[in-house]
């Protein structure tokens, strides 16, 4: 699969994860999740509300930067996306850096809102294209936000699953482990096992990820495209560079 086709498949896959939501918020530099939310709205009519943070036009918050966090705490955001420089098998994420805090090297940007939103948004989808032992580690060097919490901790949200360019895992809150759901075209169970630094549950006969329908790709091309172009002009240019290839 071409890189572009992989991105289109990821967009369609995520869109299908969002069809039971009312309000999806998307971080500023997240074109694939953003495109997916816009596509789901187009195809399913839900989410009804898509909020692209950092954007002026596609962000309906009016109460300042704090509104995202208030809104999440009110239970009014159903899905969100987080990533990590490191993600471990307990769904802990590390956005801080490698090595011992505070002298990490490399030091990444920092924790952003993850230490809060991960607790309060019901369907947090961990999304990281790179699927390697460098990223998917046994234990993160710094827990920016924990994947699970003790029963006495107020927590209404958490990880739903982990999507990479090789596979999709669901997270099991009880066992606190990922379980492999499907393997994308071009990868294999062996490839996944070789490139994942944490242990996870899987069936030997894990199915291949179902490819997107032609109808969905068409909708993306024809209906969602202008909206994506509005929010992510550069990304749209790459994505729709060769429209023949994708339909």
């Amino acid at each position, binding site marked *: 699969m071409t890189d572009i086709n992989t991105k289109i498949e990821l967009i369609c896959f995520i869109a299908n994860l969002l069809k039971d939501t009312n309000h999806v918020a998307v971080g500023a530099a997240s074109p694939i999740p953003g495109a997916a939310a816009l596509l789901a709205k187009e195809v399913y009519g839900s989410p009804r509300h898509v909020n692209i943070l950092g954007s002026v036009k596609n962000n309906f918050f009016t109460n300042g930067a*704090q509104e995202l966090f208030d809104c999440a*705490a009110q239970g009014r955001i159903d899905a969100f996306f987080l990533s990590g420089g490191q993600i471990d098998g307990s769904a802990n994420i590390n956005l801080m850096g490698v090595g011992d805090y505070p002298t990490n090297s490399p030091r990444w*940007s920092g924790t952003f809102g993850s230490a809060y939103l991960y607790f309060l948004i019901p369907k947090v989808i961990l999304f990281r294209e790179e699927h390697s032992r460098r990223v998917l580690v046994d234990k993160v060097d710094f827990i920016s936000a924990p994947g699970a919490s003790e029963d006495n901790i107020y927590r209404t949200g958490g990880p739903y699953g982990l999507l990479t360019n090789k596979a999709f895992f669901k997270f099991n809150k009880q066992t606190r482990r990922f379980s492999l759901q499907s393997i994308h075209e071009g990868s294999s169970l062996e490839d996944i096992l070789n490139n994942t630094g944490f242990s996870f549950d899987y069936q030997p006969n894990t199915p291949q990820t179902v490819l997107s329908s032609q109808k969905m790709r068409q909708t993306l091309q024809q209906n969602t495209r202008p909206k994506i172009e509005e929010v992510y002009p550069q990304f749209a240019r790459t994505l729709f560079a060769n429209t023949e290839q994708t339909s």
Partner: protein
Amino acid sequence: MTTSLRELVAHIESGMSVAVPTDYSGVAMSAIREIIRQDIKKLHLIGVPTCGLQAELLIGAGAVEVFESSALTLGEYNPAPCFSRAVKNSTIKLIDATCPAIHAALQASQKGIPFMPLRGIIGSDLLNHHPNWKTIQNPLAEQEDPIVIIPAIKPDFALFHAPLVDEHGNVWVGRRKELVTMSQASRGALVTAEKLYEGNLLEDEKLAAGTLPSLYVTASAVTPNGSWPLSFWHGRDEDSEHLKLYCKMAKTEEGFREYLDQFVFQEVSQ
């Protein structure tokens, strides 16, 4: 009532705490360069809730003693070279937080309360390293219910770039209410503005709804293109070529010095 950029920045003294907004809120880059020219040092810089090039420049110039924020990101131009060096060499003190905690700390100051409780955070390593946060039992709960309390942050100044200022010192910030929170939480606000508004912003109810009253504004300066090279939500796009150039030059300490010479020290103070 408006002043020069030079006088505006002169309100800031070495050792003060300054709250600055994240890139999409309106960053007073001109004022940041003026801070470097005025050789103001030992700042406690608070990125609300995250920070970008302005922190990177100030840290590189050695103006920052404490950096308190939830992230320092140059977006697609990451990693931030001076910040990376400073962290590695421990030349700045870090207070790493999470976005809503920065907001909560400022809102506590805005409301004159000593702290604000906040959900989440428990189990994050942030909590082990933050010097001020504290976990308490929720005093209203009968069952065990730990909750983090975030002490108020009261900066000396809030410093940002806004679309409009009027001659009375009122500032239009539109939907960017975090700028109102920052200003009310601080001793005062220092504001650069893209344009002077003729008239009184408070006399038009539509504009008033997005206006920070002059009561909270210590000084303001009309500074067109004041966010350069960053974009400004109420106007300009970023100067991508310049940002690429910055990243290239700042890769080394020497290159960064050259950048300062060329783009900061040779810039004429207004």
